[in-house]
């Protein structure tokens, strides 16, 4: 593979030619001169070619609708299938989310699916050589090893790394699989991408998801980005954002880096990485001091405003300017726009974020501050408003809902006895199982069943193996790990992880590609990799970021010897002695089982309803509106695309906008849940910890109401009813989850009201003592976690490591990049790993564009190209995170099995990102640390 890397590596002329393409001026002038004319009121207008038939001209070709497998926008497309082979893709112009649009990754789907570099058959590493083995042999070996480890060390010594790239059904089965193996040591990418969003939003107003659909941003007054770069991470979301901008919305981007999104924005605010909270509090401070906030909304539907203000009043624009490096007047300008949307009176504003906000030691607090900013003006729960967390993977919302997570059971049920009994009740319908039988599968530690103890998270799973500096709180360290559809280069501290991968007894990789699960560990044996089929070779439902559930059809039969993930689980379950619980023949049955028990999010999207929507979107052009995703005509009139949860029963149209309470529940209305109860609460009368009522005004119920069981009585029993439909309650306009208040002050969190805390490695030693990080935590998801100790140790680090390192996305690559770095089209666009560096900094350091440089931190160093650009300021270095195949300048491409190597390799930035973790969810802090740079 080395030769192909070189040949592509040389091809950076593409980017160079972009910069020097001078003939272009002619085109720019021509474009600027044309077209000032009247703006038509027709909003849904797209190029005329939309009406042209998109059907293929080739005979014998059928079109199959499916959903893109890259980001969480959930774009629809049609696969061109000829003789069982996918020969290309066609746009699905009626899909309300994307109207046929795709980005470069989506456009490469056929190439990625048919990639000759995929893993073709199960392989095992023996004596330093990769050897093909049969499926039976591979599965037997894995199952025997699992049995052996469970018998010797206990069930918690196997770690299950799940995936956000598989369907809801497979995610659900994966969590069930871990439960039947007797452990909570199961986790997946949601931990390292948006776990802080879930914790932050859910603790503010009960659900942890994006509140409004993508299309709804068309109705926003202001679209405020904070730590989001949709132009690269969610390109098709920009379709709606730029449409809103066209209609008069103001698009503001706040980011440490002048991103491609910032280039498309009306206003750009550059701030220092890791200072989101003071920036947001500065905006809130201006709004409240000017008395612009929505007092009526705050009084009726929120809790804790006064205590919140006690904290926020300290963050005046001048104080914030010192912390964030944003001029005070800019903060005042944003505050004014937020309070008075320039688009006009009556418009609501939305705030959007992604990894830029979540991946911090204060990630949960960042998100809480965004939610408070939304609450302050009453924008939460209105069309055009809300808080839009742009999630990453195609099904990461679904996998989070199915809770492939170490601290939840499917549909956000906790690990308490009641929750276990609820799901065991559901599983019991498939094959007999009792609570006691399940409990017997789990080990005990310190006199407590580990069934009720949060497991180790994926962000620090390697500490569970190493068990050295950070002794773990479970009987034995991890001895075996499944890397099931997970890119390990998206996890920080990769050198420690490599050590852990070399230390476990068996490493199992399950993925369409070999990935670095096969190659990062430098060990002669003890790795088995299984070829999973891609998303397009199996079917199932996927939930996009906006909670819209779409049925993804199978395009082709699995290529090579690859097998669907659920088949692999089934076979392992059989060998492990609980096969009867996994005897499904199709994904529809699994979805029906999910429907039975998922009351907290009320997922009642039966496969029939999802498929019916897809059919309607085929035969009747544009039956679903692009404005609000609702069917305006036809048999599905009134239904929302994708039946966004909560979808209360088989007649409910779905809830596109969470907490919107100016419409009845039966038409998609929703209330803040009465989920938060202080110690003195009684059924019917939920109180905060300081004795205030937590009931908030609701549609038709000015005083609000507590959560209701389906018989109408107060209480949390509704969550535990199996197969309930709540039709009687919905008919009375009662939301079974109650009508409560959103919290400015979340008393159960480490910071009830977020405060600024400097990052672990701060470029401002003078602020570290004033705004210190948290105290160390002895047991954070079974592992000790250091905060204050390391922050104090590194207080003056800025003297030696003067630049802030931040990381992010490239539009051409996805996640760990195993798929996209194996795709010729995408590699041609983005052939090499680089670090962005400001021209002034580059000049000082004697670096010219495309030189090799070292970026070094306390953890290690990366050898990358220098990309000299003004996107970053003089203090900041930016690196994309999709790269692997080099470790500190040394290629390990030879460790990939023959014929499965990727086309482009580079150093992984997560080798050098910081060892800080979010206080609530253990999210890694990849967005800010200190580094130094020098020429290689």
């Amino acid at each position, binding site marked *: 593979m080395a030769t192909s890397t070189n*040949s*592509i590596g040389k091809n950076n002329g*593409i980017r160079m030619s*972009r910069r020097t*393409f001078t*003939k*272009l001026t*002619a*085109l*720019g002038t021509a*474009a*600027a001169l044309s*077209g*000032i*004319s*009247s*703006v038509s009121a027709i909003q849904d207008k*797209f*190029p*005329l*070619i*939309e009406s042209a038939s*998109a059907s293929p001209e080739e005979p014998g070709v059928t079109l199959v609708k499916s959903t893109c497998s890259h980001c969480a926008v959930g774009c629809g497309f049609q696969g061109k299938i000829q003789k069982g082979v996918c020969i290309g*893709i066609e*746009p699905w112009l009626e899909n309300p989310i994307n109207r*046929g*649009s*795709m*980005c*470069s*990754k989506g*456009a*490469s789907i056929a*190439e990625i699916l048919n990639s000759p570099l995929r893993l073709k058959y199960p392989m095992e590493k023996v004596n330093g050589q990769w050897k093909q083995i049969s499926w039976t042999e591979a599965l037997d070996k894995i199952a025997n090893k699992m049995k052996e480890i469970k018998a010797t060390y206990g069930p918690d010594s196997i770690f299950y790394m799940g995936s956000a790239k598989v369907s809801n059904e497979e995610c659900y089965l994966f969590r069930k699989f871990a439960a039947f193996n007797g452990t909570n040591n199961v986790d997946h990418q949601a931990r390292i991408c948006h776990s802080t969003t879930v914790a932050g939003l859910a603790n503010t107003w009960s659900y942890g998801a994006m509140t409004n659909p993508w299309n709804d941003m068309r109705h926003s007054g202001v679209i405020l980005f904070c730590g989001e770069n949709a*132009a690269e991470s969610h*390109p*098709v979301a*920009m*379709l709606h954002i730029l449409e809103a*901008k*066209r209609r*008069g919305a103001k698009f503001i981007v706040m980011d440490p880096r*002048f991103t*491609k999104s910032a*280039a*498309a*924005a*009306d*206003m*750009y605010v550059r701030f220092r990485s890791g200072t989101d909270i003071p920036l947001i509090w500065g905006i809130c401070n201006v709004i409240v001091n000017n008395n612009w906030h929505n007092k009526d909304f705050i009084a009726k539907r929120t809790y804790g405003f006064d205590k919140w203000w006690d904290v926020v009043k300290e963050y005046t624009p001048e104080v914030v300017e010192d912390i964030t490096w944003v001029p005070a007047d800019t903060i005042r300008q944003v505050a004014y726009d937020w309070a008075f949307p*320039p688009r006009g009176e009556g418009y609501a504003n939305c705030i959007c974020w992604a990894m830029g906000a979540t991946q911090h030691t204060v990630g949960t607090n960042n998100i809480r501050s965004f939610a408070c900013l939304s609450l302050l003006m009453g924008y939460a729960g209105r069309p055009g408003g809300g808080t839009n967390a742009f999630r990453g993977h195609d099904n990461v919302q679904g996998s989070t809902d199915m809770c492939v997570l170490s601290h939840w059971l499917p549909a956000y049920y906790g690990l308490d006895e009641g929750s276990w009994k609820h799901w065991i009740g559901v599983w019991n319908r498939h094959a007999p199982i009792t609570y006691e039988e399940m409990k017997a599968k789990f080990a005990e530690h310190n006199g407590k069943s580990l069934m009720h103890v949060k497991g180790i998270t994926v962000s620090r799973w390697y500490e569970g193996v190493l068990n050295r500096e950070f002794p773990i709180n479970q009987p034995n360290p991890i001895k075996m790990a499944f890397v099931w559809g997970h890119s390990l280069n998206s996890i920080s501290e990769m050198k420690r992880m490599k050590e852990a991968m070399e230390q476990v007894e068996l490493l199992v990789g399950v993925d369409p590609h070999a990935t670095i699960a096969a190659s990062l560990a430098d060990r002669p044996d003890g790795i088995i990799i299984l070829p999973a089929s891609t998303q397009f070779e199996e079917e199932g439902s996927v939930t996009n970021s906006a909670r819209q559930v779409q049925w993804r059809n199978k395009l082709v039969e699995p290529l090579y010897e690859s097998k669907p993930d659920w088949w692999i689980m089934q076979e392992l379950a059989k060998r492990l002695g609980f096969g009867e619980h996994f005897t499904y023949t199709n994904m529809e049955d699994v979805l029906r089982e999910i429907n039975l028990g998922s009351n907290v999010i009320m997922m009642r999207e039966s496969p029939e309803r999802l498929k019916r929507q897809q059919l309607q979107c085929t035969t009747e052009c544009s039956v679903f509106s692009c404005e609000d995703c609702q069917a305006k005509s036809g048999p599905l009139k009134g239904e929302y695309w994708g039946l966004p949860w909560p979808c209360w029963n088989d007649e409910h149209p779905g809830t596109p906008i969470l907490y919107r309470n100016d419409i009845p529940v039966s038409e998609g209305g929703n209330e803040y849940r009465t989920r938060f109860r202080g110690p003195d609460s009684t059924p019917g009368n939920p109180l905060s910890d300081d004795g205030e009522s937590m009931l908030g005004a609701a549609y038709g119920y000015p005083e609000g109401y507590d959560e209701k069981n389906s018989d109408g009585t107060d209480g949390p029993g509704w969550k535990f009813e199996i197969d309930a439909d709540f039709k009687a309650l919905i008919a009375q306009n009662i939301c079974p989850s109650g009508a409560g208040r959103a919290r400015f002050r979340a008393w159960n969190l480490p910071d009830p009201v977020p405060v600024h805390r400097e990052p672990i490695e701060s470029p401002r030693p003078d602020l570290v003592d004033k705004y210190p990080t948290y105290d160390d935590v002895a047991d954070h998801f079974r592992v000790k976690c250091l905060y204050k100790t390391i922050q104090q140790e590194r207080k003056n680090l800025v003297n030696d490591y003067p630049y802030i390192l931040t990381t992010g996305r490239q539009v*051409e690559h996805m996640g760990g990049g195993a798929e996209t770095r194996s795709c*010729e*089209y*995408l590699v*041609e*666009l983005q052939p090499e790993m680089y670090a962005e560096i400001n021209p002034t900094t580059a000049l000082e350091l004697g670096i010219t564009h495309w030189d090799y440089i070292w970026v070094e931190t306390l953890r290690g160093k990366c050898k990358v190209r220098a990309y000299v*650009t*003004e*996107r970053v300021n003089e203090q900041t270095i930016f690196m994309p995170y999709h790269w692997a195949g080099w470790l500190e300048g040394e290629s390990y491409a030879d460790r990939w099995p023959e014929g499965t190597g990727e086309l482009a390799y580079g150093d992984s930035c997560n080798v050098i990102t910081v060892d800080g973790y979010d206080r609530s969810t253990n999210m890694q802090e990849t967005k800010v640390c200190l580094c130094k740079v020098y020429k290689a």
Partner: protein
Amino acid sequence: MVTYKFLNVIEKCIDCGACFAICKDQNKVPHGTARVQVVTINEGRPGEKNIPVSCMHCTEPPCEAACPVKAIYKREEDGIVLMDKNKCIGCGYCGWACPFGAPQYPHGLHGDLKEWEGIMDKCTLCVQPFVPLEKEREPSPRCALFCSTKARLGGDIAAILPVYREKKAIYTSRWQERVL
């Protein structure tokens, strides 16, 4: 009679690369050759703009005039500029003549594609893939169909021009001064 053209609402282009990738998917254009690519100006600064550039199917194509072997021709019925790859001698005159740098001269080709080494290739509005078909396909520019933000419009100029004007107008008015 129709006249096929491309128009780009450059305020909407975000350089996602969809046009490039879908063109490769549709027309099987080999590595190193791009029928369309996005050019970025003022990168990293306020005023940064992206422009997808391909053959513009000129009304009076300079490439046609420059071609010594008359391999390039403009179709009368729809104005699409095409080339006869079997006539092309790969001299590169069209590349000199074109104001947009659209003509490509593939190099380093392998296997079946070897015979097209150095032979000019460019956008055909998806009428002809890289390896020419005997029967031309219907014009249907995939780059415009798939464009992630609908920035690229492709089709009959009479139909796309009003759409272009509508999309363009707002950007030249209210908020533009804040960007620059």
